[in-house]
């Protein structure tokens, strides 16, 4: 317990101080790591905790980013104010599309979610409702400001992104250690037994989807603000695969594992830029090897601790 606290403290400190030690390029790399970490954490609720094979997460991210971009460029609403709006819209979308497919078995769900992310991308390219700007996307998204302070440099974004990541981690840790979090784990372990224990399996799966989507939608807003330009290609199936891989390789259901996964899959390739074209090749091979030799991921979820009074523990010992 103490060790993890120390590791956590040191990494938090390192992340807080990083921009002072790094040049702009590397700060930007860490910004990307942060965005992917948040997205992967939101996917982790669905994939890691509830065990739902969801490979269309980029669709929710896209809905969030486009909602923010459209409302910002047409009505001039400050971009960060749009975070809740984008989150709610992505959540609603998840609710509508997940409702009819939530009962599908693991690998079928995987295929359907791939179908959904592709349909969303095709819809964006085809300039659906005349809102999404087609293949070129939307540009001219304004920079965000916090309490009158305008965020423009990567260093500024760094604190915005990692601040949001910290809040995400804080809330998700609480969620993990609750009735809701446990219920998702029961569903992942054995759906029939979960139902037989009185757990409303379809409803909880749906809520997991919606929470994951809300978070992805909010992250999409930050992404739109950072890039000032968004296009359908940023939300392709390949993005979903990267997120999926981060969760599986890092350790599904494990918050530290997923963060480590984001560093490895997004940060590490920057160290080997010359070998960029082999990056995905290595990921693919790593996924296969990981499943064979360590299918729980690099950092599997740690057992939870419950404070049980000693008199209760001894209760029924015979």
């Amino acid at each position, binding site marked *: 317990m103490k060790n993890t606290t120390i590791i956590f403290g040191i990494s938090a400190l390192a992340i807080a101080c990083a921009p002072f030690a790094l040049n702009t390029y590397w700060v930007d790399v860490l910004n990307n790591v942060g965005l992917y970490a948040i997205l992967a954490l939101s996917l982790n609720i669905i994939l890691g905790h509830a065990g739902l094979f969801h490979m269309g997460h980029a669709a929710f991210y896209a809905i969030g980013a486009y909602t923010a971009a459209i409302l910002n460029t047409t009505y001039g609403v400050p971009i960060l104010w749009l975070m809740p709006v984008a989150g709610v819209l992505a959540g609603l979308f998840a609710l509508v599309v997940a409702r009819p*497919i939530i009962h599908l078995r693991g690998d079928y769900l995987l295929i*359907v979610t791939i179908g959904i992310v592709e349909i969303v991308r095709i819809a964006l390219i085809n300039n659906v409702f005349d809102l999404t700007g087609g293949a070129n996307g939307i540009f001219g998204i304004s920079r965000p400001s916090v309490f009158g302070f305008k965020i423009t440099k990567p260093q500024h974004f760094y604190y915005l992104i990692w601040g949001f990541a910290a809040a995400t981690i804080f809330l998700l840790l609480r969620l993990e250690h609750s009735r809701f979090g446990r219920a998702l784990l029961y569903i992942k372990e054995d759906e029939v037994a979960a139902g037989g224990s009185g757990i409303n399996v379809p409803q909880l799966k749906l809520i997991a989807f919606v929470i994951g989507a809300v978070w992805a939608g909010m992250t999409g807003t930050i992404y739109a603000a950072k890039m000032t330009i968004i296009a359908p290609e940023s939300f392709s199936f390949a993005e979903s695969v990267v997120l999926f891989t981060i969760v599986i390789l890092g350790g599904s259901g494990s918050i530290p594992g997923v963060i480590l996964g984001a560093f490895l899959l997004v940060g590490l390739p920057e160290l080997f830029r010359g070998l960029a074209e082999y990056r995905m*090749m290595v990921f*693919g*091979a790593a*996924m296969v090897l990981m*499943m064979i030799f360590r*299918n729980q991921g690099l950092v599997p979820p740690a057992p939870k601790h419950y404070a049980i009074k000693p008199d209760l523990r001894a209760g029924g010992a015979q």
Partner: protein
Amino acid sequence: MEEFFQQLTNGLAVGGIYALIALGYTMVYGVMKLINFAHGDLFTIGAYLGLTLLLSFGLFDKIGPLAAVGVLAIMVMILVAIIGALLERVAYKPLRRSPRLTAVVSALGASIFFQNTIMAIYSPKFLVYPHDILPKMAVNILGLDVPIIRILMFLTSLALMAALYFFIQKTKIGTAIRAAAIDQGAAKLMGINVDRVIMLVFCIGPALGGAAGLMVGLYYGQVNFSMGWMYGLKAFTAAILGGIGNIPGAMVGGLLLGVIEALGAAYISIAWKDAIAFCVLILILIVRPTGLLGERVAEKV
């Protein structure tokens, strides 16, 4: 009306391709209950190997186009079958006893690996098949000019499917495959070497997929490292449409999907062509997850 028949023949030709790829998905699923996500990439490998072999031996000048395509097809099928068997040995066999979804992740990893290996070897650009290797003439059917390659493609797919159907239904090995698909444990007790059956399925499916890859190369004249992904998804949709695990189902589903897509592109919108297949997929999984020819199986509690 002419437009309709042109789209219909086009749909049948492309549907034949979907059917050939779908057979690989459905056979593997039948025996192992695994969606082999790397199957679409084996199709791509077929297309690229076809191109390489075509350019390196100059067969077309030596033995004429039709014989050359035949020889090429056999070479491609054998090579892709070997890669398929290797894939099974490396990525799936060690996971036979693991949870089912572990193998699904492994399959995804293999798919990513294949795609990027092809890209690293051949470049990320579209590669062009030499055209004018097959006669460009059209055949007049009921007053309509249908390109001969379309007809050849359709007939080749049908012939391959018929051969497979005969093999599965009438031979001893085919019976072993069917037995393993129904109950692996019981098949083992009856003295069937299930490992060998699985190996065989991973040769036949990829061989058909590889042949489909070659045909797509010849039909459209160009190939791309990521094309197996879209074809794979559509073929999988076809397998689901017909009823996954069901061999005639994959054939019917493939042809049907090809026609639906061609007509949809012509009469609804060409821009939404790729979305049509996904809508079919989602609808069929919601409305009738067992597909057109599949049977309902009660889940045991």
